[in-house]
């Protein structure tokens, strides 16, 4: 696509946006042409989502200018943006599962509030919109009967039901698997032919090069470059995202791990679970800290849950301290000294319970006699550990829900610690918590490992992998694609392995 021939559909001129002192976008200019796929790439926190939110009308107080087909516009809300023909497909789908496809289409249609509802007409409209994308669904089908990939297609069809000039797609393939990705990409091809300008965000390198006409890279809120896709190599792209930074793994002494804690042979999850993984082999030494890296849907999170007895295994043999280990439930995992810190604080913190009750919930067995909780021993045990995690709470009797995110996470971690785990599984342990709390958590994990606890953790933050891991296992689409020792860790290699599926 030659940029000179057509006027841009959408243009951002010198757009800046500051959130609480940090520049999320710094004088970024960006445009998308009719019939073009313009990919925006960058690490987490590079400013991609802010850019999308500006385009979609979700951020309204930015500096700079937005032009749609040459006319200056400023969207008041997402609804305003879509009325102007700018449609956005978000990562989380926004269909109502219990309603039919047609009814979901009706929800988005600009219509008078008390219009008489004509079911036939609604189905007709939905059928036409589906047809335009060559999707063969009956509009009367309830959305919950569709697969994730099918829902995505329906969502796109709905977004395109009106008169759409610009379509923003935010990681549309993150929840999809191979054949469905292919189908989605060919759908995008068809949209291009209709002259729609497409802004496409993705983490997957293969996909980016398959679909992009132009690529823009954002880093720390600034645009690094915008170039035609065929003039960019993979290495250049990764370099631009990372910023040519030197490997950030601290030169810690190579550590040795005498005892084998966990041995995993041919472990595979049931293929029917979301984000399954296949035939993994690895070992974990006593006191070793191993990171699992992988994009959303790679199976890294599923692996942790499978080792915790929360996801069924299809095959494989695991030994824990030399004896076979095949937990059927989280409770069984706890009995073998395996604890898990869930990625979502909603699944790890009891907001209504006190800090004390939160902390000791998993270790009440040893803190009670004949079913009666020994409250003195309980308080003493928690008090001993709170200083270790540097917990800041008004008192042990305060509601955990009243604490900051970082302190809530420390409370959840405290619960894992109090059962004295042999193996600690952490799923993105510092997601969304502040820098100070994060440093505390890292420090604590290092200490734990030094005293012999083995740690297997997943992180969406590469810096965390560098800070903590003795070794990183890289998963892509459920397969173990690379193992990087501490000495070989560098961001470009890791990213390439995570996204491309080969180291």
């Amino acid at each position, binding site marked *: 696509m030659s940029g000179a021939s057509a006027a841009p559909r959408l243009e951002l001129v010198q757009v800046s946006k500051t959130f609480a002192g940090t520049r999320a976008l710094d004088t970024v200019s960006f445009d998308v042409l009719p019939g073009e796929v313009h990919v925006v790439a960058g690490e987490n926190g590079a400013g991609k989502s802010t850019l999308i939110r500006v385009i979609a009308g979700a951020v309204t107080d930015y500096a700079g200018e937005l032009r749609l087909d040459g006319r200056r516009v400023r969207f008041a809300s997402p609804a305003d943006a879509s009325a102007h023909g700018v449609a956005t497909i978000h990562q989380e789908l926004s269909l109502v599962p219990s309603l039919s496809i047609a009814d979901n289409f009706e929800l988005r249609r600009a219509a008078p509030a008390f219009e008489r509802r004509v079911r036939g007409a609604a189905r007709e409209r939905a059928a036409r919109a589906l047809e335009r994308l060559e999707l063969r669904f009956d509009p009367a089908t309830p959305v919950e009967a569709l697969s994730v990939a099918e829902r995505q297609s329906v969502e796109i069809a709905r977004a395109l039901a009106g008169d759409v000039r610009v379509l923003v797609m935010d990681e549309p393939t993150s929840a999809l698997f191979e054949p469905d990705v292919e189908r989605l990409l060919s759908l995008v091809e068809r949209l291009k032919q209709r002259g729609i300008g497409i802004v496409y965000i993705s983490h997957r390198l293969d996909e980016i090069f398959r679909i992009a006409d132009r690529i823009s890279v954002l880093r720390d809120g600034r645009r690094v470059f915008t170039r035609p896709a065929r003039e960019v190599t993979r290495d250049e792209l990764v370099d631009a995202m990372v910023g040519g930074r030197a490997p950030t793994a601290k030169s810690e002494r190579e550590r040795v791990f005498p005892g084998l804690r966990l041995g995993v042979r041919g472990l595979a999850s049931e293929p029917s679970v979301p984000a399954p993984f296949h035939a993994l082999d690895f070992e974990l030494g006593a006191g070793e800290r191993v990171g699992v890296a992988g994009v959303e849907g790679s199976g890294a999170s599923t692996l942790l849950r499978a080792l915790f007895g929360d996801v069924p295994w299809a095959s494989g043999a695991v030994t824990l301290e030399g004896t076979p280990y095949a937990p059927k439930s989280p409770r069984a995992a706890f009995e073998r000294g395996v604890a898990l810190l869930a990625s979502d604080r909603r699944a790890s913190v*009891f907001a209504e319970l006190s800090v004390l009750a939160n902390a000791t919930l998993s270790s009440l067995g040893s803190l009670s006699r004949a079913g009666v909780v020994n409250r003195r021993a309980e308080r003493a045990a928690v008090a001993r550990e709170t200083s270790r995690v540097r917990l800041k709470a008004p008192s042990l009797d305060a509601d955990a*829900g009243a604490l900051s995110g970082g302190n809530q996470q420390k409370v959840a971690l405290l619960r894992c610690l109090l059962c004295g785990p042999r193996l600690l599984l952490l799923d993105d342990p510092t997601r969304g918590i502040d820098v100070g709390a994060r440093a505390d958590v890292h420090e604590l994990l290092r200490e734990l490992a030094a005293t012999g606890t083995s740690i297997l953790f997943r992180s969406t933050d590469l810096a965390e992998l560098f800070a903590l891991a003795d070794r990183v296992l890289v998963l892509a689409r459920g397969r173990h694609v690379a193992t990087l020792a501490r000495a070989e860790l560098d961001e470009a290699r890791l990213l390439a392995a995570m996204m491309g599926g080969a180291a």
Partner: protein
Amino acid sequence: MKLAFITSPKVRPFVPLLAVLLFGCVLNAHGAFFEWQTHRAVLREIAVGGILACGMTVVIVSGGIDLAVGSVLALSAVSFAWLTLLHGWAGFFALPVVLLVGAGAGALSGALVAWPRMQPFIVTLAMMVFARGLAKELSGGQKISTYVQEPDGTFRTVPLPAVFEALDGRVLGGNVSVVTLVFLASALVTWVILERLRVGRYLFAVGGNFEAARLSGVPVRLTLVFAYVLSGIFAALAGVCQAAQETHGDPETGMGYELDAIAMVVLGGTSLMGGRGGVALTVIGALTLGYLEKVLSLNAYSTELRLMLTGVILVLAVLFQRRFGRETA
């Protein structure tokens, strides 16, 4: 705000009760409100509902609801009368059997909530209907009283067993009803379970965040079963008290008691969302409802008006709890 102390978490649950008591002191029905027998009557009248409310508290803390308690009460009252009056069992043997019946009903509800993860509302609604039917089946649709029909069609009167009189009596110089003591003992047992036992912690955890409890190694399903079993046992105990007070086993008794029990729990400030609350609050809630009823009846308000006022006051009290509960939580 000058009245800030009213909204502090420690004082808050007492406010509706104090308001009702104040109301009683003003409208004292020519001093009747200041006589001990009035208070003794309130404490007796709330006992059966209060015993149900103890079990209900445990179930609600676990994040559920038990609509079956009124029917299980009736089933237990009938069973107790059937064993003691018709079959001449001693109360000493009949009581554990009846408690077992209640526990069985609770275990069935609890199992359906725990394993297929059915909605507690649906499960206990079904148990409510089923237990009522079973009570009618067992009694042949009739009250089981001391006036017993023999197989040959003749009637005879059996003496009222001692256990009936004991439960319906008073102690401490006639100043306190026995059922009041049974209620207080139930509340104490519930308090120990919720505040001192490991299973109490599990109940709060399961009600507060089921998924997190599961991932913390809490035996979530057994905990749920425990809650409903306990509620069933308390319902059976309430049924025995009811039978003793009525001197017969009536399959129609206890209709709508589940709603009174829920009202007592909620009025105390225990959250229907689960995970927050306690039985001390329920005792306060029971007293509030009991006194409200008594003050209104002392002043000869009609039943119709009493029901309407009770509804209004229930809503106001809960609004008050919520309005100020959020800020201090």
